[in-house]
C-alpha cells in the first residue's frame, strides 16, 4: 500500500477515536465552540485528504458530516441527541471505510446513501428558520464543487489565510479571534514537527535489548566489585549510569496514558445506554495514568466488555432506579492509578449489583460447583464464579440479568498479561470490578532478600522501610498477640509475617525466632495495610527485569514473576498483596471492602462515617455515630446505684444517669422484659456508652460493644420503633441507628424529673 495512504489511515484512525469522545462530550456541553471547532477540523482534514487520495466515497460521507457540523458551529442548528447519533453514525461509517481501505486498498462499494441523506436532512431540518439559509446553501454549493471533482482530479486546498479573511469579512469572527486561531495552528504545527511515528515492533525490540543490557550491566557490576583496577571500576560506574538512563528513556517511549482507552468509553456508554433505554453518566479519573502500550492494547477489549456489561446489565432503567430511591441517572466510574508497582483500574457502577444467590444456583445448575463447595463459599468466592467459562445468569430473553456473559473472556485476557480481576458487589448498590495489571514488561527496582538460602526480590514500591532488630530487641520488641507475632513500631503494632513460614520453607518460625540473634523486617504495604515481612537477610537493591511466570505457576499468589540475577540465576519476585492475603493480613480488610468500596466510589455526596456497633436488647444490632460518643466505659454492676426511678453511677466526680436501652426501646418480642431488673447481672461489668448531648452527659447501657466500622450507611429505611432514627445497612447488616435526643425524651417521660436533677449535678 502507498505510504501516503498508510499514513492517512493511521492518522485518521487516531482522529476518529478522539472524535468519538469529543462528540459525546459535546452532547453534554453543546455550546463549547472549542469542541465544535476541533470536531469540525478533524472531519475537514479527513475530507481534504480524501480528495488527494482519490477516495470519493469516503469524501462524500465526510462532506455530509462536515456540512452538518459547520451549521452547528455557526449556530444555525442546535445539537440534539438525534444529531449526535447521526454524527456518530458518520464516524462509524468512516471507520468502516478506513478498515476497508486498509484491507483492500479501495474505499469499498458501500455508498451510505441513507446516512448521507440523513445527515443532509438533519442539517436542513432547522434551516428553514434561518434567514441566512440562502446565503449558506450557496456557500456550500461553491464549496462542494471541488470536493465532487476530487476523485477525478485532485485539487489543492485553498490558499491558507483566505478562509480566515473571508470569515472576518462576513463578520463571523473578529480579527482578534482569527489572529489567535492562526497562532494556535502555527503552534500545533510546531508540535507535530517534533514527533515522529515509530513502529511499535521497533520499540519492543529496543525494550528487549535494554532488558538484556540491564542484566549484563548487573553482571559486570557484580564482577567489578571483585576488581581493583580503578579505570575499570570507573568505566563500570559510567556504564551503570548510562544503562539506567537509557532504560528509563526507552521505557518512556512505550508508555501511553490510559486515556487512549478510556476516551472511547463515553461513546460506548452512550450507545449502549440509548440502546437499552437507560441514562448513564460516566466519570473518569486518573486518565493520565501511564502504562505500557502493549498492556494498554491487552486491556482494551476486556475493559470495553466490562463497561458494556455495567451499562447493559448493572445499571437499572430510570424507572427501576427511581423505585429504588436512586437518581434516575446511573453512574459509571472508571478509575486508574498506580498502586504498588501495578496499574489498578476500577470500574464501578451504582446499579443493581449481583445477586449471589442466583449466581450460586446457576453455578450449581451448570455443575460448576458441587453443593458441598457451595455451602463453604464466601460471598466473594461466589461472585468470582461469574468468571468461569460457560457461566451466565442471563435468562437471555430478558436482557436484564446478572452479569456474566463473556466474563471469562475478560478474565482470560487479563490473565494473559498476568493481571488479576476482582469483583465486589453489593446487591442493590452496585458493582465494582478491579483490574490489576502488573508491570510485567517493566524493569523495576527491587530489594533482594534471602530466606532459607533462597533469594527473593521485593519490588521497592511496596517497601515502606527496613528494620533490623538485634540483641535483646529481638526478644523485647517482638511480642505476641494471642500467639501471633507483632512488632511495636513507633507505638503501633505491626503484624509480622515470616517468609519462611509463608513459603513453607521452614515449619516452626516462632521457635527459631528465640534463637536468632537478629531479625530483619521488611515493612510492606499491601493495599492500605502495613505488615512486616521477616526475612533472614536483606541484600542490595537492584534493577530487575520482571518476567512473567509460566501458566503452571500462575496459581501461586505470592509470586509476581521471576527475574534473572546478576549471577545468571533465577530469583522469584514476591507479590506483596498476594503474600498479605496468604498471611490473612488482607482477608478481613478485603471482606470489609466488599461492602465499603463500591459505595465509596459511587456515592460521593454521602460522607463516610465512623460508627460504633453494639448489641442492644434482644441482640438487636445498633449503631451510633462515633462522634456523638465521649467514651466507652465499663462499670461493675455493683457501682450502679438507684436514684429515684433512675439508675446512676458515679463517674469522674459526677453522677452519670444510665439509660437502659431495653427500658426505653419498644419491645420487638412478645415476651415481656423485666424492666425492673438491674441493668445486667451483678457479676459481669456493664458496657456503657458515654454520650454528650446538648451539654448533658448520659450513659447508655448496651449488651455488648461489637466493633467500630467506617461506612457511608446510605441505605436507609424508616425506623420501626421510637428511639431509633432509622435503620441503615452497615457492613451488610441491617443496623438501627439510635436517636439520642429521642431516647432521652422517652427516658424522661418514663422516669420523670430525675434527669433534670442529674442535669443540675452535671
Amino acid at each position, binding site marked *: 500500500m502507498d505510504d501516503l495512504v498508510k499514513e492517512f489511515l493511521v492518522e485518521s484512525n487516531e482522529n476518529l477515536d478522539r472524535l468519538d469522545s469529543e462528540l459525546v462530550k459535546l452532547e453534554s456541553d453543546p455550546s463549547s465552540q472549542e469542541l465544535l471547532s476541533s470536531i469540525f477540523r478533524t472531519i475537514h482534514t479527513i475530507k481534504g485528504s480524501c480528495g488527494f487520495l482519490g477516495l470519493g466515497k469516503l469524501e462524500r460521507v465526510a462532506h455530509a458530516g462536515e456540512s452538518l457540523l459547520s451549521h452547528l458551529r455557526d449556530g444555525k442548528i442546535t445539537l440534539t441527541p438525534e444529531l449526535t447519533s447521526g454524527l456518530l453514525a458518520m464516524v462509524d461509517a468512516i471507520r468502516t471505510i478506513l478498515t476497508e481501505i486498509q484491507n483492500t486498498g479501495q474505499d469499498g462499494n458501500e455508498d451510505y446513501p441513507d446516512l448521507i441523506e440523513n445527515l443532509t436532512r438533519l442539517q436542513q431540518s432547522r434551516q428553514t428558520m434561518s434567514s441566512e439559509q440562502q446565503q449558506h446553501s450557496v456557500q456550500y454549493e461553491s464549496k462542494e464543487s471541488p470536493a465532487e471533482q476530487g476523485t477525478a482530479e485532485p485539487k489543492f486546498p485553498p490558499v491558507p489565510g483566505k478562509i480566515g479573511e473571508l470569515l472576518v469579512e462576513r463578520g463571523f469572527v473578529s480579527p482578534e479571534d482569527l489572529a489567535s486561531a492562526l497562532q494556535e495552528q502555527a503552534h500545533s504545527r510546531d508540535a507535530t514537527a517534533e514527533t515522529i511515528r515509530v513502529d511499535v515492533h521497533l520499540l519492543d525490540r529496543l525494550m528487549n535489548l535494554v532488558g*538484556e543490557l540491564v*542484566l549484563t550491566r548487573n553482571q559486570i557490576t557484580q564482577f567489578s566489585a571483585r576488581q581493583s583496577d580503578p579505570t575499570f571500576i570507573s568505566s563500570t560506574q559510567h556504564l551503570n549510569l548510562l544503562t539506567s538512563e537509557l532504560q528509563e528513556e526507552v521505557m518512556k517511549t512505550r508508555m501511553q496514558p490510559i486515556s487512549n482507552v478510556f476516551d472511547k468509553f463515553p461513546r460506548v456508554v452512550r450507545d449502549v445506554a440509548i440502546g437499552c433505554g437507560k441514562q448513564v453518566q460516566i466519570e473518569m479519573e486518573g486518565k493520565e495514568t501511564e502504562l505500557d502500550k502493549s498492556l494498554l492494547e491487552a486491556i482494551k477489549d476486556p475493559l470495553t466488555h466490562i463497561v458494556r456489561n455495567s451499562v447493559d446489565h448493572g445499571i437499572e432503567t430510570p424507572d427501576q432506579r427511581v423505585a429504588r430511591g436512586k437518581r434516575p441517572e446511573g453512574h459509571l466510574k472508571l478509575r486508574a492509578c498506580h498502586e504498588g508497582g501495578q496499574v489498578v483500574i476500577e470500574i464501578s457502577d451504582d446499579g443493581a449489583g449481583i445477586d449471589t444467590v442466583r449466581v450460586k444456583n446457576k453455578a450449581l445448575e451448570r455443575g*460448576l*460447583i458441587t453443593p458441598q463447595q457451595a455451602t463453604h463459599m464466601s460471598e466473594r468466592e461466589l461472585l468470582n464464579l461469574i468468571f*468461569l*467459562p*460457560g457461566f451466565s445468569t442471563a435468562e437471555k430473553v430478558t436482557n436484564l440479568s446478572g452479569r456474566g456473559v463473556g466474563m*471469562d473472556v475478560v478474565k*482470560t485476557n487479563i490473565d494473559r498479561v498476568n493481571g488479576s480481576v476482582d469483583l465486589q458487589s453489593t446487591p442493590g448498590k452496585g458493582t465494582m470490578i478491579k483490574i490489576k495489571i502488573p508491570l510485567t514488561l517493566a524493569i523495576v527496582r527491587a530489594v533482594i532478600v534471602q530466606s532459607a538460602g*533462597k533469594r527473593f526480590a521485593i519490588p521497592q514500591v511496596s517497601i515502606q522501610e527496613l528494620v533490623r532488630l538485634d540483641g535483646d530487641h529481638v526478644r523485647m520488641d517482638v511480642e505476641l498477640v494471642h500467639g501471633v507475632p507483632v512488632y511495636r513500631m513507633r507505638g503501633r503494632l505491626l503484624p509480622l509475617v515470616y517468609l519462611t513460614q509463608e*513459603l*513453607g*520453607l521452614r515449619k516452626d518460625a516462632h521457635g527459631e525466632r528465640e534463637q536468632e540473634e537478629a531479625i530483619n523486617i521488611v515493612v510492606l504495604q499491601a493495599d492500605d495495610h502495613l505488615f512486616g515481612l521477616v526475612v533472614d537477610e536483606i541484600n542490595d537493591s537492584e534493577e530487575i527485569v520482571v*518476567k512473567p*511466570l*509460566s*501458566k*503452571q*505457576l500462575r*496459581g*501461586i499468589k*505470592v*509470586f509476581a514473576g*521471576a*527475574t*534473572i540475577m546478576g549471577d*545468571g*540465576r*533465577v*530469583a*522469584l519476585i514476591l507479590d506483596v498483596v498476594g503474600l498479605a492475603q496468604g498471611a490473612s493480613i488482607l482477608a478481613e480488610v478485603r471482606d470489609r471492602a466488599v461492602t465499603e468500596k463500591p459505595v465509596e466510589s459511587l456515592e460521593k455526596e454521602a460522607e463516610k462515617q465512623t460508627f460504633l456497633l453494639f448489641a442492644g436488647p434482644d441482640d438487636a444490632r445498633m449503631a451510633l455515630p462515633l462522634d456523638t460518643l465521649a467514651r466507652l466505659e465499663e462499670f461493675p454492676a455493683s457501682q450502679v446505684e438507684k436514684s429515684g426511678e433512675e439508675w446512676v453511677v458515679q463517674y469522674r466526680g459526677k453522677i452519670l444517669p444510665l439509660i437502659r436501652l431495653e427500658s426505653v426501646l419498644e419491645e420487638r418480642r412478645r415476651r415481656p422484659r423485666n424492666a425492673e431488673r438491674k441493668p445486667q447481672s451483678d457479676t459481669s461489668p456493664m458496657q456503657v456508652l458515654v454520650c454528650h448531648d446538648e451539654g448533658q452527659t448520659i450513659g447508655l447501657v448496651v449488651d455488648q460493644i461489637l466493633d467500630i466500622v467506617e461506612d457511608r450507611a446510605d441505605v436507609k429505611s424508616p425506623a420501626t420503633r421510637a428511639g431509633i432514627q432509622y435503620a441503615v445497612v452497615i457492613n451488610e447488616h441491617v443496623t438501627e441507628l439510635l436517636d439520642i435526643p429521642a431516647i432521652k425524651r422517652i427516658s424522661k417521660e418514663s422516669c420523670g424529673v430525675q434527669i433534670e436533677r442529674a442535669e443540675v449535678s452535671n
Partner: protein
Amino acid sequence: MAQPHQFCTFYLDKLMFGVELQKVQEVMRHLELTGIPLAPGVVSGLMNLRGQIVTAIDLRRRLELADRPEDMLPMNVVIRSADGAVSLLVDEIGDVVEVGDESFERPPETLQGKVREVILGVHKLDRHLMHVLDTDKACETVATATSMNRRLASTT
C-alpha cells in the same frame, strides 16, 4: 498411509519416551534450577535459558514414576508450548527415531490413572516400546476445577 514421524526420544526410569521432533526446541545438559516454594510437586523450578526464564517440569513426577536418584542429574528437553518454552526433565536423551503410523497403538485399556492422559500411545520399535508423550498435557500441572471448566468450555 505410512507417513513417517520423527520423534526425539529420552528415557525415564528405563522406559523409553518420545515427543514429536517439531515440538522440541532444544536439548540441554543439566542447568541449575531455582526451586519454587508452594509450586506443584511436578514443577522442579525455574532455569535461565540464555536470558529466558523457563519452567522445568519433572517428567518422572508427572508420570508418577519413582523419584530420580539424588546423584543423577536430569537432562532438559526444552519444548515449545503455547505458553512459551517449557523444559521437561528426563534421565537420559536418546536418538531421533523415525516411525510410521503402522507401528502406533493406543495405550492398553489396562493403563489407568493420570498417566493415561499424558501418554497418547506407543510406537512398537524393534526392541522397545516408545511411549508417545502429549506435551501439552505433560506441561499441564494445575488441573484444577477452573482449568478443567475452561477446557470444557473451549472444546464445546
